[in-house]
């Protein structure tokens, strides 16, 4: 559903309750606008080794990074599109028409007053300053290729917490980040991790020192403002022994005429006894290809949780993973995907058990609307030499219309007999009789549908922090408005 369609339904106030109307008004103002482009640095259209050099030069990178990029470009060019298992739609990405680096040349500021006016306007409309004042320990706001604003509360800096963008992380804190950079997700993991490794820019590099437990979350906001543009942020979070961090990311783009590419790489390292929670709420416009690689390594007694909500985009391919490398490590993926008309959410989880007594949990719920398609791909791997491993996988799909589609591809490889695994999958529909029942109580069709869908994901929504779960419910209502009638 395109955002324009929503405004058409809002012109009949008697059809929609005030709350929904407000939500629509807020969200329209929130996502679908753009400010004029004003880029001092532009790597031009298309991708070759000059593009890579241009990016590396603008960032004044060391030789090892430049080399890393060039090698990655070679891998990207060599690797075929994974259309042997994934959708043919990938072939519609026109790599030659994309702009790979756009920035206005300013360093990220620590004060809102110094943020360029047009960028400030963007993030103020998206509510970032208020959120920062409210409940965040630190925030980074990325506009096209580079962070425009980055701030972390002073007491955290004093404790040794590092929260910077990728350029700064590799330049100023090489000794901390270089040992892990590209190690959780190697360049050649897949075609898009290679692409990201060649042209990455922005993203968050975070280090939490031993024993530091952050009570408030860190947040990054990714905003695509330019057409024919590819955003390739690179995030690396290292939680040192016994530390705890919650990181949240939000993503939006205005509605463009042509397709836009978002291809991030996110690597997490939870050292002994550390806990990382990584929360994503994306609300991409319907012509964004969103192809993201996310994986974490959990050492002994460590825990990594991916909480992922995928709304919007033309095609999302994302399978957050956890490699449980140390004994008693825990991995979890909780995901909600909503595929609206013409969209494809191809999501899932990868749980790789690599030590004894490790535990993983996957709960995935998808909603397909109109001609939307949701695909679940799961991979659970428990090798024969291990013992005491546990996996629980639940994937539930809800189909809204008769044209909606869902597919499930669970691949659970469990060897040996000293493990406990459990897999449940269900496909359900919002039945006509359920809608009739709700309508007989006075709800119109869209309200009834929204309520049913919110009910379906209710137990997962409660996993998100309050500020995000309210937003999520609004986004779902918004998506459902166009699904009926």
């Amino acid at each position, binding site marked *: 559903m395109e955002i324009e369609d929503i405004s058409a339904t809002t012109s009949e*106030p*008697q059809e929609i*309750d*005030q*709350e929904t109307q407000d939500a629509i008004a807020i969200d329209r103002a929130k996502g679908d606008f753009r400010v004029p482009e004003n880029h001092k640095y532009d790597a031009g259209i298309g991708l070759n080794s000059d593009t890579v050099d241009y990016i590396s030069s603008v960032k004044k990178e060391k030789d090892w990074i430049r080399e890393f990029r060039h090698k990655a470009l070679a891998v990207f060019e060599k690797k075929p599109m994974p259309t042997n298992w994934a959708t043919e739609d990938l072939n519609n990405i026109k790599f030659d028409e994309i702009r790979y680096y756009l920035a206005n040349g300013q360093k990220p500021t620590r004060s809102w007053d110094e943020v360029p006016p047009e960028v400030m306007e963007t993030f103020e409309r998206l509510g970032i300053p208020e959120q920062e004042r409210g409940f965040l320990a630190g925030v980074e706001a990325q506009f096209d290729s580079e962070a425009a604003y980055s701030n972390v509360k002073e007491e955290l800096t004093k404790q040794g917490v590092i929260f910077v963008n990728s350029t700064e992380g590799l330049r100023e804190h090489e000794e901390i980040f270089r040992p892990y950079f590209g190690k959780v997700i190697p360049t050649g993991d897949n075609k898009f991790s290679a692409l990201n490794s060649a042209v990455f820019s922005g993203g968050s590099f975070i280090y939490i020192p031993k024993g530091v437990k952050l009570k408030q979350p860190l947040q990054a906001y990714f905003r695509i403002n330019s057409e024919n543009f590819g955003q390739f942020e690179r995030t690396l979070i290292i939680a040192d022994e016994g530390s705890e961090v919650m990181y949240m990311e939000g993503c939006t783009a205005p509605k463009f005429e042509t397709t836009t590419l978002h291809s991030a790489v996110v690597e997490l390292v939870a050292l002994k006894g550390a806990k990382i929670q990584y929360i994503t709420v994306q609300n991409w416009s319907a012509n964004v290809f969103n192809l993201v690689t996310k994986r974490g390594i959990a050492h002994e007694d460590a825990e990594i949780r991916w909480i992922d909500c995928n709304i919007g985009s033309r095609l999302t391919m994302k399978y957050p993973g956890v490699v449980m490398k140390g004994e008693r490590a825990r991995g979890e993926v909780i995901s909600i995907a909503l595929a609206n008309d013409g969209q494809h959410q191809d999501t899932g989880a990868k749980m790789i058990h690599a030590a004894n007594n490790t535990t993983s949990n996957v709960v995935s719920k998808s909603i397909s609307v109109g001609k939307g398609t949701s695909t679940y791909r799961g991979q659970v791997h428990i090798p024969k030499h291990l013992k005491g491993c546990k996996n629980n996988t639940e994937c539930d799909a809800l189909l809204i219309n008769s044209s909606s589609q869902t597919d499930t591809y669970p691949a659970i490889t469990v060897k040996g007999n000293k493990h406990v695994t459990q897999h449940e999958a269900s496909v359900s529909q919002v*039945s*006509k*009789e*359920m809608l*009739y*029942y*709700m*309508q*007989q*109580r*006075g*709800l*119109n*069709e869209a*309200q*009834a549908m929204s*309520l*049913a869908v*919110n*009910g*379906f*994901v*209710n*137990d997962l929504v409660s996993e998100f922090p309050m500020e995000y779960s309210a937003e999520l419910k609004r986004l779902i209502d918004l998506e459902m408005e166009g699904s009926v009638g």
Partner: protein
Amino acid sequence: MSIIIKDLHAKIGDTEILKGVNLEIPTGQVHAIMGTNGSGKSTLSKVISGHEDYEVTSGSIEMDGKDILGLDVDERSRQGIFLAFQYPMEIPGVSNANFIRAALNARLAEGEELDAVAYYKNLYSKMDALEIDRTFTARSVNEGYSGGEKKRNEILQMSMLEPKYCILDETDSGLDIDALKVVSRGVNSLRTEDRGFLIITHYQRLLDYIKPDVVHVMHDGQIIKSGGPELALELEEQGYEQFKPVTA
């Protein structure tokens, strides 16, 4: 004030189910419809509520002087028609409290909001009266409820939404005698001068607890006899056979 049904014909697919129903339900009265399986009782309740599977081929339904056949299910509901379902639907993940609140919100004018404190106070007092445990506010609508709990939940929704016309479709089916008493008490407490009831049932038993003003006998899509409460007793004793037209 009344619902007036005139010569109502309705079909589902190609099968005609209602074959000329005439019925008037004024406010302040309780009308009971009795009849065998397949006589069209439940269809009548669905057609009054506006179920889209049924096509009205002729006749009319007026509520307080206005034709309601052109209205959608939810519009009829908001204008005052409530149907207590024979088989209430389960809505996973949606709590009773949220569901009833959404239904009440749908009745408010734009910009108006439900007062949360007053809402819960009202909800709790009505739950207490129907002997519904207060933990049910947080439970999903009808999910995993016993038959009796579902029916009580229907009456709870009815009393919260304060409809003008209440239709109860075989509310007594699947109820034990204690639950039947609680449900009947709930219904009786809603009987007022400005509210009308249509009670659809197989058995006289329910009418021992909810005394009807008028009893109708339905057969093959028509109301073939109407009378006072004694008609229900007569039916109970002698069966439906005597009322069926000889030619049928």
